[in-house]
């Protein structure tokens, strides 16, 4: 997910959801603070970062892939610690490489952290391994768990994009675009995860303590349900808020402070487009066409003057800012 494709309502709702899960994980891990787990989690995060940049060739296709690492982290660290590590990797990627973005961070952590750590690992990987521990099962469980978590993650991206209403992609097209690609990625991810896990299993099995039957890293059903309930309440609450006739948070705030809804200048490109949004939007009331404006402009009411005015005004603002900023440069001291 990228900031540019997400709306504040959807982004905010996933921010709340992932913050709640992060808070739960941090509480769960408090007893380990001061133990070797703290540096281990940190360094493993850096490991995933490095691993994502080492490519391998995919046989028969001429293309290459890399490890995602969510499932691998869950296998080594258990769900809660893995979720924290995945989140931290995504935070650094969002900040340093502007990969994804700040508002979409909640969505991204949920898509790439929640599904491998809290669904694929405890409900699929561990269940399969517990039945018959061994190398063939590691491969089968890794591939199944990776495919499921990537399918869920990809579908989650589709839902978030559609709820945001910035992209015009219809549901069916987007699903057909995302799911098959992520099926392939999931299989590759599973094979590579299995390859790494088997290597460690052969040389240093004690690192994979969690792979022993009834290992300590298992997650209780009660806690899992609790996480789901929290997520469901937050998502449900936010969706109903989203679907109601109230505008988004910022507009709502402005509405509250100024006592009026935002009104677009009449006869602007904005109001033409607001008409459109009424027709196309899944939430017609979301538009800010100035509810009470009497005359609905004829469609299409072409007024290139306002368009040109918009372009000219925008450029002018930027030039002025640039000049003001330049004067600030005098205050720059030489680098330390």
């Amino acid at each position: 997910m990228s900031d540019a494709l997400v709306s504040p309502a959807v982004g905010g709702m996933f921010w709340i959801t992932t913050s709640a899960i992060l808070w739960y994980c941090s509480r769960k891990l408090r007893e380990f603070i001061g133990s070797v787990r703290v540096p281990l989690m940190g360094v493993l995060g850096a490991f995933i970062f490095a691993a994502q940049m080492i490519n391998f060739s995919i046989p028969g296709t001429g293309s290459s892939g890399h490890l995602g690492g969510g499932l691998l982290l869950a296998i080594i660290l258990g769900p809660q610690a893995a979720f924290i590590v995945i989140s931290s990797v995504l935070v650094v990627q969002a900040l340093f490489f502007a990969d994804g973005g700040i508002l979409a961070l909640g969505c991204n952590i949920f898509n790439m952290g929640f599904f491998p750590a809290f669904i694929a690992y405890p409900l699929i990987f561990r269940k399969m391994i517990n039945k018959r521990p061994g190398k063939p099962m590691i491969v089968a469980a890794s591939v199944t768990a990776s495919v499921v978590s990537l399918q869920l993650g990809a579908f989650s991206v589709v839902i978030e994009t559609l709820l945001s209403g910035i992209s015009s992609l219809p549901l069916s097209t987007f699903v057909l675009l995302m799911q098959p690609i992520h099926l392939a990625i999931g299989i590759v991810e599973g094979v590579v995860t299995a390859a790494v896990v088997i290597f460690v299993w052969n040389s240093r099995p004690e690192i994979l303590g969690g792979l022993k039957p009834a290992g300590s890293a298992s997650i209780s059903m009660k806690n899992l349900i609790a996480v789901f309930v929290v997520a469901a309440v937050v998502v449900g609450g936010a969706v109903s808020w989203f679907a109601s006739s109230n505008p988004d948070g910022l507009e709502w705030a402005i509405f509250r402070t100024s006592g009026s809804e935002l009104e677009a200048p009449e006869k602007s490109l904005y109001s033409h487009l607001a008409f459109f949004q009424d027709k196309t939007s899944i939430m017609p009331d979301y538009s800010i066409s100035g509810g009470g404006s009497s005359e609905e402009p004829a469609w299409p009411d072409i007024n290139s003057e306002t368009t040109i005015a918009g372009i000219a005004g925008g450029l002018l603002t930027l030039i002025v800012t640039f000049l003001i900023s330049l004067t600030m440069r005098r205050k720059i001291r030489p680098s330390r």
Partner: protein
Amino acid sequence: MKIGSARDDALYMEELSQKDTPVHRIDPRAKIIVNIFFIFTVLSFNRYEISALVTFFTFPLFLMVSGDLPAGYLTKKLLLISPIVVLIAVFNPVFDRETAFILAGAEISAGWVSFFSILIRFFLTAGSILILIASTGFYKVCMALERIGVPSLFVMQLLFLYRYIFVLLDEGARMVRAHALRSFSDRGIKIKTFGSLLGNLLLRTVDRADRIHSAMLARGFDGSVTLNRRIKFRTSDAFFVVFWPVLFILMRRYNFSELIGSFFLRIF
């Protein structure tokens, strides 16, 4: 991205954050709060907005110029990550074909309007984040996050991760180079080799964590990482926190591009 270039990239960002300009001197908490406000405001516009969004470039532009940050480098970085957004946005002109307006005789469809709106959103939000990091540095951001109330376990995780990214990127790059020197064609790494290569890196990582932990205990680690750098909230920071959000609200309410543009068109 090549593993070596990722390391150089992060190092360069760190280097930029060491400058001493008015922007670098702003309290990191103030910068984070204003940035979040900025992103929310930009993304709250409807999907066909363009001209009002353009005025929002004032914020990143101001920070970039007065923070003495290299425009070319930041733009290149943004362009490198833009294909994913473009890939999704390009479907808007395909599915949304109604005419939005006519400019210079050419019909512009609503899909193209929203396409450019998405691109502008991308450059605004991603650009402002890059500028935040380039003018603040990761340690100060972490420090601010802890003060704002992010759980300290998570802040510690971020600090550890960031400290060891450079070490592990180096180690990974050496392993890839060693593999390349021992294989005769550039066919890439086979999955079987990849498993043991990455597995080895993983084992070294786990051992490293053990050594780090011993070293930390030897230095009196008690479960909390103390950040021994003070940040002070000054009057200019308060001005920064008030001025920009107020401006964002005004720019959200009134389309300054059109207002200023039509004012000038009337004069001439």
